[in-house]
């Protein structure tokens, strides 16, 4: 059974403006009377209630229709109403517990949402983000049948986000791959092997922390010499990328080696006992930045590794999060493509239940909050295009919403939170500046483009 797109409603972002209802009514009936809208939103004690067809997977309205006038379409999952068969008995409205199919007095028959052929008019006019059209189903439909190239039973911690990153990325990259996993959680959970077996279904090796990118360089070049096209891929932690491994990483990026380097950033050396790395953020508890009578967690801000990688003028650089999978997959595809031409670097934030000390079931929520608070910014860079923010950082949730979920920040004083907010603001201004072409390097890119356009003219 395929997965389907859906309209999602977040009442906390709704302001009750009613634009969605007027837009729906106009599109469906030609009059803007909200009574004719297929989506109904009602104020509810400071929040908002939603009545809308959920396009149920196992729809009771369809089962309750005596005239075969309702049918769930296999291609887009929409429950369609056939006016030529409907006998106006209203039994479908008994089957629906969501107020999603309702008799309309003006049209004299039941009406329901048909998602406007995949382009819902209500979502288009929602300025607050309360209504969104979720198209993540596409990922499942496209990659659901691809082979998982890691063995089952990897021994990651409960709720491990990194395992998700590994399985999602490698199944997309495909079997024609040589994989490098330097010391860290990824080989530590068994990816690189145990008892004489590997944990992957592709060739995998375990370089030193220092030489991952160098070894991949050699392997990729040897395969090219043999005339074989393979993906040379690294799945490395932030320690292996930003600290000890940075020299070889920087060198390979500067040389433009055809490598896809994925940094799985869990903000420390979590595999070996939760020590700090240069990617650990200010204020965070780690075993080497303890919290006690004098210690207040890490006293420096994190190194901004993806920005450093961008300044190597790589073929492609992007940040991503498992809280935003569509975005992650779009960037993964671009990165795979770019690695055929040059160095591609993908920086994926990976909340760590064990090292950051939060309940294992909250991983996606933490990943999402990190982005929604702008603690993590999602962007991509390609030469000739410059930097582009791939998610609007406007209207962030309060940074405290993110920090208070995490045990490693539990000790923070107000001034520490202010420091972190300042860092977030500075990063945002910097990245927005780059995106707006205000940074000198970006300004020259913009000038180059203008020159090219002028030459063409």
């Amino acid at each position, binding site marked *: 059974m395929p997965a389907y797109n859906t309209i999602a409603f977040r*009442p906390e972002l709704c302001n009750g403006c009613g634009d969605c209802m007027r837009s729906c009514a106009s599109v469906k009936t030609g009059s803007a009377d909200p009574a004719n809208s297929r989506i*109904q939103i*009602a104020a*509810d*004690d400071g929040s*908002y*209630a*939603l*009545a809308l067809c959920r396009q149920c997977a*196992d729809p*009771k309205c369809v*089962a*309750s229709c*005596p*005239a*075969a006038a309702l049918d769930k379409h296999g291609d887009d999952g929409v429950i369609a109403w056939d006016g*030529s*068969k409907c*006998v*106006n*008995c*209203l*039994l479908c*409205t*008994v*089957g*629906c*517990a*969501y*107020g999603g199919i*309702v*008799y309309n*007095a003006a049209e*004299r028959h039941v009406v329901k949402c048909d998602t406007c052929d995949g382009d819902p008019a209500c979502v288009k006019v929602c300025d607050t983000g309360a209504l969104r059209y979720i198209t993540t189903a596409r990922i499942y439909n496209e990659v659901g049948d691809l082979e998982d190239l890691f063995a089952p039973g990897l021994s990651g911690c409960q709720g491990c986000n990194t395992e998700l990153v590994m399985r999602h990325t490698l199944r997309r990259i495909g079997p024609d791959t040589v994989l490098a996993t330097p010391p860290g959680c990824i080989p530590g959970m068994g990816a690189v092997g145990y008892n004489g077996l590997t944990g992957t279904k592709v060739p995998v090796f375990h370089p030193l922390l220092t030489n991952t990118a160098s070894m991949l360089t050699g392997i990729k070049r040897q395969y090219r010499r043999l005339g074989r096209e393979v993906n040379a891929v690294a799945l490395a932690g932030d320690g292996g990328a930003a600290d000890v491994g940075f020299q070889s990483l920087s060198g390979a990026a500067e040389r433009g080696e055809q490598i896809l380097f994925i940094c799985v950033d869990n903000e420390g050396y979590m595999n070996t006992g939760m020590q700090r790395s240069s990617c650990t953020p200010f204020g965070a508890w780690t075993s080497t930045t303890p919290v006690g009578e004098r210690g207040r967690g890490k006293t420096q801000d994190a190194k901004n590794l993806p920005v450093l990688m961008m300044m190597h003028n790589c073929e492609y650089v992007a940040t991503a999060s498992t809280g935003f999978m569509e975005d992650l997959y779009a960037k993964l595809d671009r990165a795979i493509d770019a690695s055929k031409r040059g160095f591609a670097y993908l920086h994926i934030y990976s909340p760590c239940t064990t090292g950051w000390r939060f309940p294992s079931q909250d991983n996606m929520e933490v990943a999402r909050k990190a982005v929604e608070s702008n603690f993590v910014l999602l962007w991509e860079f390609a030469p000739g295009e410059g930097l582009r923010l791939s998610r609007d950082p406007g209207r962030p949730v309060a940074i405290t919403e993110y920090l208070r979920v995490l045990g490693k920040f539990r000790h923070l004083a107000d001034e520490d939170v202010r420091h972190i907010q300042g860092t977030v603001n500075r990063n945002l201004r910097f990245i927005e500046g780059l995106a707006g072409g205000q940074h000198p390097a970006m300004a020259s890119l913009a000038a180059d483009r203008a020159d090219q356009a002028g030459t063409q003219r």
Partner: protein
Amino acid sequence: MPVPNRYVIVGASHAGLEALRAIRMQDAEGSLAMITRDDALPYSPTVLPYVVSGRSAPERVALKDEAWFAEQKAQLLRGRTVTAVEATANQLRLDDGSLIGYERLLLATGAAPQLPPIPGLRGVKFHVLRRLDDAIGLHAALPSVKQAVVLGAGLIGMHAAENLAKAGVQVTLVELQPRVLAGYFDADAAAIIESAFSDRGVRLLLGRRAAGVAADGAGIRLQLDDGSELTAGLLLVATGVAPAMECIADSGIATDRGILVDERMQTSVGNVWAAGDVAQARDFYGTDAGARIINGILPDAVEQGRIAGQAMAGDPALRPYPGGVPLNTYTFFGQQAVSVGRQDIGETVLREADRARYLKIVMQQDQLTGIFGINAPFDPGIMWELILRRIDLGPLRAAFLADPQTVARRIMSRSWR
């Protein structure tokens, strides 16, 4: 001894089809046969009045086609009647003498018209409306009919009377009760419905009993208990239905008015289940846990069918049947009547009625027990859930009574995903 099917379902309407779907959610492969006495593809009895009027073409009312059964890896045996359930041998005897073995059996045989004890009825030509062939026959008879008598003002009788009237027939409706649709609406609501019929020229004879009937040329002559007489070219008997359970007469399966089932739709015989109009199941409002009712309505047939299918396939997600809630929707001459729950339990906390609109809400303590409307907007599916979940309406009582649709939607948004 025939090779037994893993599953056999007798009956191919809503309960049977939903059971088939529920089984296939859990067991994609187990051999499955569905038996229907009709030659036609599966259809709903509810659509038949519209076949009579011509609004629904008989070939367009099929709920599922052969391709669907092939997809489901299910065998559909059409035009075959089960004459006996031989429960000790786990087999069914069919009208052609053949035997079908089963490991797990669902009886979803529905109901059959119950004929009233009217002297002379067996000797005249009359119609009933339960099967597709009945509807096609009635539709074919329409052009030659000028006057029709409909016995019974239940849903089938009312739908048929309206559709006959729309086809230009002069209709007289005879009902024993003092009002129409007595099972679903009170006198005020029934009055709105009755006036809509009268306005369209349908003659309503309420509180009248048919005393006798005789042939009169090609038609009939009907005597009423007050001595008056009616003649008509067509007689439709719609005085109610009874569970179709002749085939289990000697099976040892326990019955009362219908086949008795527990909260998993299981009968007294361990590998036999029953669902839909044939089943007598838990009463949601019953104070006695053993109370069993026949709740012959389409949405409940779907519920029961799904539960039976889940139980037959061992689906761990099964949630026991919460009990039957009477509910129905009824549209007449472009107006909408909706009835959810019971009128006679609790107290009437709101009642608004005029000639065009009616709304009544019945509550017990602060829980909804019933809501009834004509041309009054509310979502029956949400109201049904409010009743089943026994939602405490205390804090929202005044708001709910002022605007039941919006407030129920609010509760839905807060209480269920």
